């Protein structure tokens, strides 16, 4: 807890000003802390000119971890629909909750979403906590983070998992920091260790050359974000029953200096890279920009999306949003066609989860063939037109 040395405190109000949670007030020229709101973030401790504030540290080992129970999934809504990753998370979280013999709770934050709660139950949740507020209608990083952290402190779940999406990756780290706990980003696997009961969180390291399993055994909750498209969702079961709980957050948690003035959903041309089942990727082997159309044509024939290696996007042939790999997006389609891609590790880590990998490359020693299902050694400029023509014919397109 936060301790205030009344002898040292001069009532200057510095701590009151910096506290993001409104937990400190100056009463009779002395700081006073509201323990309910205090997150122990330590900002005030660092600010106090007199050194009057301190956070009493229970050594990490002494923390009573056993009082933290339950598995939470943070759901995510886009344009009124749950992102697929939400259901993927629920599918895995169901396993985790069963392994720990605890309930699975889904958190639903936003505005006007209450009627969506049932869908979360049908996908595996035992309980849904709905935080419904007009002030959550826009995604505001710090407000979302404070609400979730507040809930977590109150309810003390053992595990919190969320999607490694633009929003998840933005506010979940804030939650973990407020809670002073560990967070593993971009996991590709989650399991409960049978002996210790710890959450084993697996993620790629060193650009995917190594898979590292991370644990957080001294703090709670155990937190992780998980890449979309790596876990399997459960089929919806509308007969499932569950509890829906409303939670009204203290209004000061929703105060933010960030103002969303416009929120725009962009029309996607063709299927999105991460949503499609087929990706056709352009690599340096195409040699010049004009040949990019060979890849685009094959993608059209397959009704897939166009990907590109970093070399191609850096050269400005196509926008960076098409880049597959470590610094781009991760895809795991059913079919991945690598055209003139040499297969640098930074690229491989972004597509290795693909089910069938077809590699077309002049150089039979190119690393891309190491992970390919089918390899064609040949000139992409020659192969692609033939392939496009035959596939179009096969699928009855022109």
């Amino acid at each position, binding site marked *: 807890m936060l301790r205030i040395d009344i002898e040292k405190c001069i009532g200057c109000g510095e701590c009151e000003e910096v506290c993001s949670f409104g937990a400190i007030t100056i009463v009779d020229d002395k700081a006073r802390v509201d323990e309910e709101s205090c997150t122990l*973030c330590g900002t005030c401790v660092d600010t106090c000119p007199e050194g009057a504030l301190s956070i009493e540290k229970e050594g990490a080992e002494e923390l009573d971890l056993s009082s933290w129970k339950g598995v939470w999934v943070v759901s995510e809504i886009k344009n009124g629909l749950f992102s697929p990753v939400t259901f993927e998370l629920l599918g895995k979280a169901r396993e985790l909750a069963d392994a720990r013999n605890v309930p699975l709770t889904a958190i639903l934050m936003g505005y006007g979403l209450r009627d969506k709660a049932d869908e979360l139950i049908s996908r595996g949740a035992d309980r849904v906590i709905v935080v419904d507020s007009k002030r959550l209608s826009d995604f505001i990083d710090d407000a979302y*983070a404070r609400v979730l952290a507040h809930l977590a402190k109150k309810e003390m779940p053992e595990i919190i998992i969320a999607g490694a999406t633009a*929003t998840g990756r933005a506010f979940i780290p804030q939650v973990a920091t407020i809670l002073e706990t*560990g967070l*593993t980003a971009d996991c590709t696997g989650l399991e409960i260790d049978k002996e210790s009961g710890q959450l084993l969180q697996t993620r790629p390291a060193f650009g995917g050359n190594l898979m590292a399993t991370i644990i957080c055994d001294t703090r709670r909750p155990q937190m992780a974000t998980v890449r979309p498209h790596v876990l399997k969702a459960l089929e919806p079961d509308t007969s499932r029953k569950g509890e829906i709980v409303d939670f009204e957050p203290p209004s000061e948690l929703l105060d933010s200096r960030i103002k969303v*003035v416009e929120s725009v959903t962009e029309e996607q041309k063709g299927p999105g890279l991460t949503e499609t089942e087929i990706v056709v990727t352009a690599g340096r082997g195409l040699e010049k920009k004009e040949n990019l159309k060979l890849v685009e044509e094959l993608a059209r024939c397959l009704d897939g999306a166009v990907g590109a290696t970093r070399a191609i996007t850096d050269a400005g042939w196509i926008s960076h949003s098409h880049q597959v790999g470590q610094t781009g997006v991760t895809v795991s389609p059913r*079919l991945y066609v690598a055209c003139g891609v040499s297969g640098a590790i930074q690229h491989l880590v972004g597509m290795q989860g693909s089910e069938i990998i077809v590699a077309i490359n002049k150089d039979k020693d190119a690393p891309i063939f190491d992970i390919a299902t*089918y390899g064609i050694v040949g000139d992409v400029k020659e192969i692609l037109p033939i392939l496009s023509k035959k596939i179009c014919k096969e699928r009855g397109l022109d």
Partner: protein
Amino acid sequence: MPEDKVMNIVVCIKQVPDAESVKWDHKTGTLIRDGVKSVINPFDYHAIEAALTLKDELGAKVTAVTMGPPQAEEAIREAMSMGVDEGVVVSDRAFAGSDTLATTYTLSRAIKRLGDVHAVFCGKQAIDGDTAQVGPGLAVRLGIPCVTYVSEMEVINGGKGLRLKRLKEDGFDMVEVDFPVLVTTLSTLNTPRVPSLKAKMKAKRAKIPVWTAGDIGADKKRIGLNGSPTKVHSTYIPKFEAKREFLEGSPEEQVDALIKRLKEAGVI
């Protein structure tokens, strides 16, 4: 924030192994460390440029902060050669083993030592860890709002705040926020400027301060391994399946063989 003082901008940078020079031996499962160069994390160049753009527009002192081994001062010098005014290396053996929680604590202590800060810029993520957690976590520690994945930036309110375009998977938000704020930058935000000769010469001669745990008044329990709740439990080398089948013959035959297999697999 005080009105009369010069604007204070901090840019957080990290030295990472050059992705181009890192090679991995798949057979033995080891990193080939020979000839691996250290470079500034690519996304951080855009954070530096954003800070300098703001400096050009509003006038400011830009300080680069990096946490790492003493050699990380090279990253500071490079930032200074682009126009960053000063830099600090936060370095101490006691920081070893820091996860993102300990890192944000350490960086926040260093930044607080720099005084009131109006804006902090971080790259969207570092290419060695790829966590994207330090920016948002640091914002919490500093008690300031954070806007991530920013691809456009404009000064508003007469120099008191920013309008930012924050990218999401399916679109974007335009957000407005007054200083102080922490921004994480995408590579589409700007084109980093080239170094200037004068700044390069200045950077070469500059004495780069190194701040230890003691200098930033860090709590020993919150730094390095002690302050890092996550730990590596085990690692393994991902198997790149070599069940590969080369399709032989003329281009026509290769294509026919491929289509046959794709049809069998039911993908077309």
